């Protein structure tokens, strides 16, 4: 599959995300925040970083970039979209995902290996994981605390839309230990930790993150 990875001014993990996409067996296509089309890609990854310097709110300016107009339209038609870290923040600001991400409750930047449970393996991004698989990937954020009102949280849990939950301690104050969620249709996934940094044995905490980038291929040949 052709998977586009968007680079915004201030993106940090776009190169790692493209590498993970390739290691997952896909073709990586570099997209730019000023692009007015998606170059015919089948799916899009919004990578981590500090797009537009995190000015105003994380993701608030990026949400109105030309390429996001295209991504929002394509997501509405069912295109798989994965937002990691800053990408998750952009998806929330775009209202493609409910809730918001605010500053960590302990006020410090956190950078560590993080245990997660994949609670929804029915999305195109998580389909290669076993039900309730426990994986360890990198977590690094300053504003990763997921918040939403109780009604929204109850709905997310009731509809099985919590994609990943923190295990072994809550690293940032996220309500109900939520690390990632999906939209109603299940094609848009936002995740605070970084699977793209856990795709090779040489560096990082292992290869547990690779599954996020192999699911689409498996679906293609299924």
């Amino acid at each position, binding site marked *: 599959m052709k998977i586009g990875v968007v680079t915004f001014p201030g993106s940090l993990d776009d190169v790692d995300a493209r590498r993970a996409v390739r290691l997952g067996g896909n073709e990586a296509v570099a997209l730019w925040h000023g692009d007015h089309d998606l170059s015919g890609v089948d799916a899009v990854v919004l990578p981590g970083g500090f797009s537009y310097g995190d000015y105003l709110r994380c993701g608030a300016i990026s949400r109105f970039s030309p390429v996001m107009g295209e991504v929002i339209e394509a997501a509405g038609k069912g295109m798989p979209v994965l937002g990691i870290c800053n990408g998750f923040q952009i998806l929330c600001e775009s209202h493609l995902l409910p809730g918001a991400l605010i*500053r960590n409750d302990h006020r410090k930047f956190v950078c560590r290996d993080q245990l997660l449970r994949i609670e929804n393996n029915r999305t195109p991004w998580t389909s290669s994981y076993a039900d309730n698989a426990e994986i360890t990937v990198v977590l690094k954020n300053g504003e990763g605390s997921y918040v939403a009102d109780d009604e929204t949280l109850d709905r997310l849990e009731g509809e099985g839309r919590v994609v990943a939950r923190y295990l072994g301690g809550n690293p940032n104050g996220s309500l109900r230990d939520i690390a990632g969620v999906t939209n109603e249709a299940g094609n848009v996934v936002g995740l605070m930790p970084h699977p793209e940094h856990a795709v090779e044995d040489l560096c990082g905490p292992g290869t547990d993150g690779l599954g996020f980038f192999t699911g689409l291929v498996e679906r293609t040949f299924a």
Partner: protein
Amino acid sequence: MARVVVDVMPKPEILDPQGKAVHGALPRLGFDGVVDVRQGKRFELEIDGEATEEKLAEVHKIAETLLSNPVIEDYAIHVEGSSGAGKHSA
């Protein structure tokens, strides 16, 4: 020219770690008696011409669309008169 001020504050039920950090610093500096601190943002918009109802409606749209995130923040708008009109609130 009119100046329209948009104040954006985290909703009361949303944790405000920055406000908490500021609050925590006050006793260390010898300022006692402050019970809580919430930190928000203030935007000053210079508007062409008078702050008519129409223009204020547009500022509301700006505040809802970009300046605030309604999921976690509330906003309030008021006009600061620049031609001796005094202060207004809207």
